């Protein structure tokens, strides 16, 4: 009986000894602790040649979990890459950079300013890095329609209203040196102008993947935040139309074949990449085709610049029209 009593007394301590290691709730240090840089920012892989698949990553460590932002800005191109994370360490896993851009235009071979910033905390760490060769976006997983570097293909036909402008411009492009400027004021029609990019004359003639869920159309658009004098809304309206040649007769028949649309306001200033999955396109109510999205049958892509005729000036320059497989071009 004495042994039983002894065991009775000891049993609770046995259970209690199974102590847990974790903490309960969010860390107070992360919420209210002071931020100290334990390991300063380092650049691993500086002067990378992104064109051959090299990459750069960063390392640093902090005294607490913190929301951090790395901002890389090309000194010449003005391109910006933003990498964000929430951790107490920056490493290859959370900061790997393959040379892509967050804000257009694309990076070129150049020096870049580097900033490491933190949310809530005022600390900013500055540095510089170099890009030996920029990332190539036109790869085996893309089909380039045009980047205008070789001029405007005259087989891409179209129409612009009298007094409105469609012209090839050098310098200030979203990618490379050249882009297609589109702007003007038309007080009698919504249409400023359009361009048909026929698939027979695309720069790359590789086949598109025929799965609409894996195909993305990408286009750079340079806006000017034009606001309507009448409605006080964005004035420049951009529309994309995709025409399928269902029967392969090199002709789009509106009475029997598919067309899919996508339109949006151009309410920003500067270059921006617009990417849309082919599967997300919507047919117009008048669509007479079978409604089955078949990217391999795309006959042409039409880009239209529209504006309310009562509201004045509209602008949407374009550059780097490219198809990408599996993900948007800047993903």
């Amino acid at each position, binding site marked *: 009986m004495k042994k*039983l*009593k002894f065991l*009775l*007394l000891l*049993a*609770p*301590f046995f*259970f*209690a000894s199974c*102590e*847990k*290691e*974790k*903490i*309960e*709730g*969010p*860390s*107070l*240090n992360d*919420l*209210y*602790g*002071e931020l100290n840089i334990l390991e300063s920012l380092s650049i691993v892989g500086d002067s990378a040649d992104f064109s051959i698949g090299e990459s750069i990553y960063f390392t640093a460590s902090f005294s607490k979990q913190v929301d951090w932002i790395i901002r890389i800005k090309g000194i010449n191109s003005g391109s910006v890459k933003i990498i964000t994370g929430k951790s107490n360490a920056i490493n290859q896993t959370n900061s790997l950079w393959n040379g892509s851009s967050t804000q257009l235009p694309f990076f070129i071979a150049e020096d870049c300013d580097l900033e490491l910033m933190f949310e809530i905390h005022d600390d900013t760490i500055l540095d510089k890095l170099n890009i030996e060769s920029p990332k190539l976006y036109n790869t085996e997983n893309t089909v380039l329609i045009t980047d205008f570097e070789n001029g405007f293909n005259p087989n891409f036909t179209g129409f612009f209203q009298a007094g409105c402008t469609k012209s090839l411009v050098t310098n200030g492009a979203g990618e490379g040196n050249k882009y297609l400027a589109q702007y003007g004021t038309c007080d009698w029609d919504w249409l400023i102008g359009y361009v048909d990019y026929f698939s027979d004359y695309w720069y790359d003639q590789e086949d598109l993947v025929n799965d609409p869920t894996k195909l993305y159309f990408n286009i750079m658009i340079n806006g000017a935040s034009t606001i309507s004098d009448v409605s006080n809304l964005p004035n420049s309206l951009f529309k994309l139309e995709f025409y399928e040649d269902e029967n392969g007769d090199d002709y789009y028949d509106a009475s029997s074949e598919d067309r899919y649309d996508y339109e949006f306001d151009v309410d920003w200033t500067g270059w921006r990449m617009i990417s849309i999955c082919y599967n997300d396109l919507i047919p117009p109510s008048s669509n007479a085709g079978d409604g089955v999205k078949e990217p391999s049958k795309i006959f042409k892509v039409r880009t239209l610049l529209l504006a309310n005729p009562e509201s004045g000036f509209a602008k949407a320059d374009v550059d780097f029209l490219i198809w990408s497989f599996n993900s948007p071009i800047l993903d």
Partner: protein
Amino acid sequence: MLFPILAQSQVKSKLWYDGNARVMYNRDALEGTLKETDTVSTRSNGEGFTILDLGFHFTPVDDIEISSEIRLKNDFGGMWGNKSYVELRRLSAKGVVNNKIAFSVGDIYLKQTKFTLYNYEQELSEYEPSVFKFYRDFVNYENYYQSNYWRLQGVQTNFSYNMYNFIEQLDFDAFATRIRGLEWLGKPELLMLGGSAVVTLSNKINLGSHYVNTFEVLSSSNGTVAYYNPVFNTQLSYSGSLKDIPYKMLLEGGFSKRGWDGDSLAPEIKGYFTKVTINAKGKKGEINLGFRYVDTDFRSIGSQTRRIDNNNITTTYPYYSNDYTQRKVSVLDMMSDPNVYNQNLSTSLMTYNPMYSSVSPYGDATPNRIGLTAEIDNLDLTDFLSAKIQTQYFSEIIGQGTIHKRSFNKSALHSLLFLDKLLSLNKHLSLEGSINLETVKRDGDDFEKIDFNSILYSGSISYELIKNLKIIAGAKVFYVEGNEFIAERDMYDQINDYLNNIYDSKETILIGGLQHHFTDDIYFTMQYNQFNVLDKTNTYDEFSLGRLIFMFNMNL
């Protein structure tokens, strides 16, 4: 109208009655600087009522008793039926089947173990001098708090077998209650089922298992989520004697599970607890020693529901000052206001104010605690001086938001001095004093440090002027200073943030008056009370109040 019933009860003994009668009137008036600076609130206000709670017990057959309690209430200031209320306070039936199985249905009072179903006392009520007891009785009575039972609605049964061999006796108890009824387009019904089985192996050893499961009935609502919280508790006790000192050891342990079926975001948490206590009774007093471990994830709706709901609005001056600030629940309200109390079991951990209870806000079932307790009770130092003392040391099992763990200390001392015996006086003269102390400490960096102290001094004196008529005076002074983090929890009780509260305040309660006892249960008291709440951090304006109160109480 009642005379025929009473007459019948006297003749046939099939109907008898009990109940409570209470007359209370109080007039509250602002005092101090608040009286000058607060131009919004009334200078004073008063209220009073007469209450008669009539309990009828009807015995149609020998084994059945039907009980009901009707409240007749008349607020002062009403006339011709205005402000008069009649309400049903209790309706239940109980009986015995074949002299073996007892049952109760309707409004029932239930208690199991301290980790499954237990209604813990409100904070700062321990070792309270007896002159404050009339307030405490009033608050507890109005909230149906009978010792540590929860009042619930349902059915309960119990029976036992005497076996006269190795197993001497088997006791079984089971209940089913409805905690929350149907809500139109609301939450599902919440039910609680429970049971106990206790085996008495010999006069020395008892083995008991207790189980409570609280769950929502999904089919009773249009929702897709249903709460569940089963808790299991096993107890093993041994009674013995060492050098003619009887002692009892109690070892208990158990576990809980809590989650929401149908909610992919809701975590299912499991926690366990263990406790051992040794109780020994000597000639001079009684000693209790204990060890307790309650897991961080231990959840038990029946034992972790608090009496005080800090979200309730106070009755006395709920808003004050020219900013119309809502007055927080303070010592004065905890002592005297039944409306700051809660009568329903809560499915999540209720918020608490660390000022008044930081060590064990959920009683023994407070999660994330490991530590030792010691208590000496009924310590008769001399024939005129008795004392009781307790101390508890706890630590967190895991740190809250940090690897540094809080350490807790809760100590209390109470002493009663019969001056009439000491000074050989003919008339009763007694002096009572108590101290309740709580400290919380946590090391670490500045942003996580905790240094918190609260202390309540209470004292009273009672002198018998003439037979059964006493002049009484009492005081409570409560100090709190330091800082403590309050964890903010989401709908699943998971901590998502902390609030570091700085405390530096003082609360004072002074009472003085007369009290006359006709019997132990029939008395009246007339007093003047003075309350002051001073927040030295200047977050809240000073609140001062004077109260003239009269109470007549009669337990039938």
